[in-house]
């Protein structure tokens, strides 16, 4: 969940400067004009409520003290009702309620109106992550771990098993997300934009926003490829309870200048890297890491560390070697064999992960395992020192090197931290 730390920096800043007004203001600063309209509405209701509350409580406390019981002294007679007063206090709230309804409806239309000329992207939600396809078919390859993990201030905290995707959008441009779900109901919420929308498995819903320009953005990204550019991060979360890792179903919307957005799409659109690197990206895009860790820690599903080419205990008591075909079966027909101690919870990824992509994932898993065939071979031939053995096995060494690099970024492990 620490992915969110950078994103809610506004909030921390408010706290750090002890700016209490920001704290009690409706959810900090809003970054869309429709969001600010909703904030205005909230503050209108808020101050009206405060006024009503203060009047009522002052009266209550005043009456309670002024008319406290004195022994032997009767309560003075007073009217049991007062029609003009009662009509007044019926009509006044009713008028305010009408105002709230109409203004609220107007704001609601502004928040949800599907803007013409928007960037239309498709969003697929699933337990417990999301995939977003840009109009050109690109899918982000960045996760918040890569970008935020290393910058965690004390260098100690990293992620839970979840790796949150980072989605780039240009400043001041309407965006329309066409959303649906692969399994249960989810809800898409960007608190900074003040809107959430439920996502259903059997229909499309949409989410619209126009992010503010980056005029006042204080954060500058130093990108080795694209140079320095201003950006702003907005956290998004699942707001409809969806099971075990509901609380880790997060993501980041990164607002950048138009040319950076285009450059990023260019990068996302061109397949690059080794098979293992691609496998890691495909696994991340499909939300594998919300259940499976790569560092040996426990999750809803078994960890991928040392999974490949190793024997494991299964629920029916058997022991099976996790070879290529076993991994294929576990991804396409997950209920066929259940690892001992784990629930039968995984859905089939047949259709979601292509056979080509599956091969990449297997390549990636191989880099996470010490028990590669190359290592075994080396161990029988030369010297039982695993490091040395891997160093000698040409292809294996490459894969292991890749694993080292991507591992570090996955976990956001601070180097030397």
């Amino acid at each position: 969940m620490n992915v969110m730390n950078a994103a809610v920096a506004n909030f921390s800043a408010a706290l750090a400067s002890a700016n209490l007004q920001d704290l009690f203001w409706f959810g900090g600063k809003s970054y869309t004009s429709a969001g600010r309209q909703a904030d205005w509405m909230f503050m209108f209701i808020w101050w009206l409520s405060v006024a009503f509350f203060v009047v009522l409580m002052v009266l209550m406390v005043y009456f309670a003290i002024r008319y406290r019981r004195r022994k032997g002294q009767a309560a003075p007679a007073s009217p049991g009702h007062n029609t003009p007063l009662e009509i007044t206090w019926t009509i006044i709230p009713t008028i305010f309620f009408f105002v709230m309804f109409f203004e609220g409806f107007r704001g609601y239309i502004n928040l949800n109106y599907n803007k013409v000329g928007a960037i239309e992207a498709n969003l697929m939600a699933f337990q417990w992550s999301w995939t977003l396809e840009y109009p050109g078919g690109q899918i982000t390859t960045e996760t918040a771990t890569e970008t935020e993990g290393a910058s965690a201030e004390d260098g100690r905290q990293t992620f839970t098993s979840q790796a949150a995707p980072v989605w780039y959008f240009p400043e001041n441009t309407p965006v329309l997300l066409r959303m649906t779900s692969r399994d249960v109901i989810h809800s898409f919420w960007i608190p900074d934009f003040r809107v959430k929308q439920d996502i259903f498995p059997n229909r499309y819903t949409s989410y619209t926003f126009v992010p503010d320009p980056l005029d006042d953005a204080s954060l500058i990204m130093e990108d080795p490829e694209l140079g320095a550019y201003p950006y702003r991060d907005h956290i998004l979360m699942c707001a409809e309870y969806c099971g075990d890792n509901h609380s880790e179903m997060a993501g980041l919307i990164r607002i950048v200048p138009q040319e950076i957005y285009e450059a990023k799409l260019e990068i996302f659109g061109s397949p690059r890297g080794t098979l293992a690197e691609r496998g890691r990206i495909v696994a991340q895009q499909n939300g594998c890491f919300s259940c499976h860790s790569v560092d040996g820690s426990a999750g809803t599903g078994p960890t991928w560390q040392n999974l490949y080419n190793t024997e494991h205990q299964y629920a029916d008591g058997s022991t099976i070697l996790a070879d290529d075909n076993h991994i294929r079966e576990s991804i396409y027909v997950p209920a066929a064999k259940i690892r001992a101690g784990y629930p039968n919870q995984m859905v089939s990824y047949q259709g979601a992960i292509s056979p080509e992509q599956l091969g990449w994932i297997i390549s990636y898993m191989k880099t996470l395992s010490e028990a590669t065939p190359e290592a075994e071979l080396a161990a029988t031939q030369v010297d039982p020192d695993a490091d040395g053995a891997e160093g000698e096995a040409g292809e294996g060494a490459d894969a292991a090197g890749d694993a080292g690099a991507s591992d570090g970024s996955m976990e956001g492990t601070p180097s030397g931290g």
Partner: protein
Amino acid sequence: MSSLDSHAGSAPQHGGGHHGSYLTSKGSLWADIANWATTVDHKKIGVMYLTALLILFFLGGVMALAVRFELLEPTRIVINQAGESVTTGQRLAFLASDGATANNIYNRAMTLHGAIMTFMFIVPGIPASLGNFFLPLMIGAKDVAFPRLNLGSWYVYVFGSLFALASALVGGIDTGWTLYTPYSTMTDADHWRLVAMITGVFIMGFSSIMTGLNFVVTVHKLRAPGMGWFDMPLFVWAIYATAIIQVLATPVIGITTLMLIFERLFNFGLFDPRLGGDPVLFQHFFWFYSHPVVYIMILPAFGVISETITVHARKPIFGYRSIAFASLGIAAVSFLVWGHHMFTSQGELTAAIFSFLTFFVAVPTAIKVFNWISTLYKGSIVFNTPMLYTLGFLFLFTIGGLTGLPLATLSTDMHLHDSYYVVAHFHYVMFGGTVIAFLAGLHHWWPKMFGKMYAETPAKLGFWLVFLGFNTTFFIQFIMGAHGMPRRYASYPDEFQWMHIISTVGSWMLLAGFLVHLFTFIHALLQGKTASANPWGGMTLEWHADSPPDEHNFAHEPIVKHGPYAYDRVVPPHTDPAEYPLPEKTDLH
């Protein structure tokens, strides 16, 4: 003095053994158990309901404490000195057994807290315990209209609760109390726990319908001679309005749970999109019951407050008829606003219609608060525990009501829906409203129910702990929600931690407050001073009966000659006129 055909001469008012009291032992322990288990006395059934409810409230409370305990710290993966990654902050992880993750344990605790507190505690709550005990007494009847049905409803309730708790014992469910499909049709696919829980809810529905039906008939047919509709105490009005909702709305949850059971067991395809069903249909069904049920929870609380505020301020209620009609009005409108739970899951037009209708519930609710505060005007207000709880109710319920306005308003609900803001709002209504009123009523009627006074000083201490603990726990959650903390999260961004810590500390204060109350109640039963028939100088008929009441309530059928709150005209029976003098006559009424 009394306007009743009183039995004042026939029974001792102070002490003297209560040989005719409903609590009188039948001799041996077994005879007593047999007597209570087969009783058709509404008072005993009320006490039996009260006992069961308090046990379930305790269980639900333990779950709440577990939830708050887990949320003291977010889940973190920390690199330790040795360079290994270690997961910290999963405080409930020690409960996780084979196949369950720490998040899963949190989700189960959160679900059980919600399911126990709503279905098993707060829905039956005040009507089944205080309502059962006092409705017949307040209308001058010997019992409810169908005493055996009344006993049956208790057994059905206990049976249903055991079903649901059995599900909890074998691991519980993790769907949230709202049971939204298709999550509830997919989770724990090879387990029967979910079916057991829903079956429990289904069974408890019958208990609710039986009680509601019983009360409607009782109010219509068994009022004492001379008691017209507008001579009824407002508690009776509130219970009556509640009973109507119980009879009309509960069958819907029965149907819904049955459909969900069939969906789970036989794959009917009603709600599961994989079978062509529609998950939103379930939400409509669910809230068509579960919104009116909010008023099943809160209307009896309104009734209790209308009693305690008049008795302890010695004032006729301000605007009797508008409070009575507001109860019925709320009951009617409550059936038309279920869609406001679903603003983010339906079309714009539907959302607009439901938003509009929702404001119509707000109007009568606001009127009630104005009426109660006006009742205090020129009163003779005593600060005992029931009155403190009454004032506490007005404070908390007003916050609960006002914070509901941004949730009824569409543009602001888009942000606040399913956040901690909502959690804070409904706890201010359900806990700050119903539970606080329940405690007001429990202290108010305790002397009548058990013939013993509770000790005022520790009870007041209990009030302050509960009141301050409640605000500490929940007020901060409004701010958390507005800043983006979603509900039902086992972990959260670090920034929220200090607020979660405040909230959790508040939950411990609440625990301390309830322990103090438990102590005062047990102390009262064992060593409490004997209560007189009318320790507060109340005007309604239950104060004409002995404390504790005679087995048949009244020695003679009472005849009503004045309204329930005629403090300005009549000195209540069995009271000291020096302590409760009559005001000078004026021509104001």
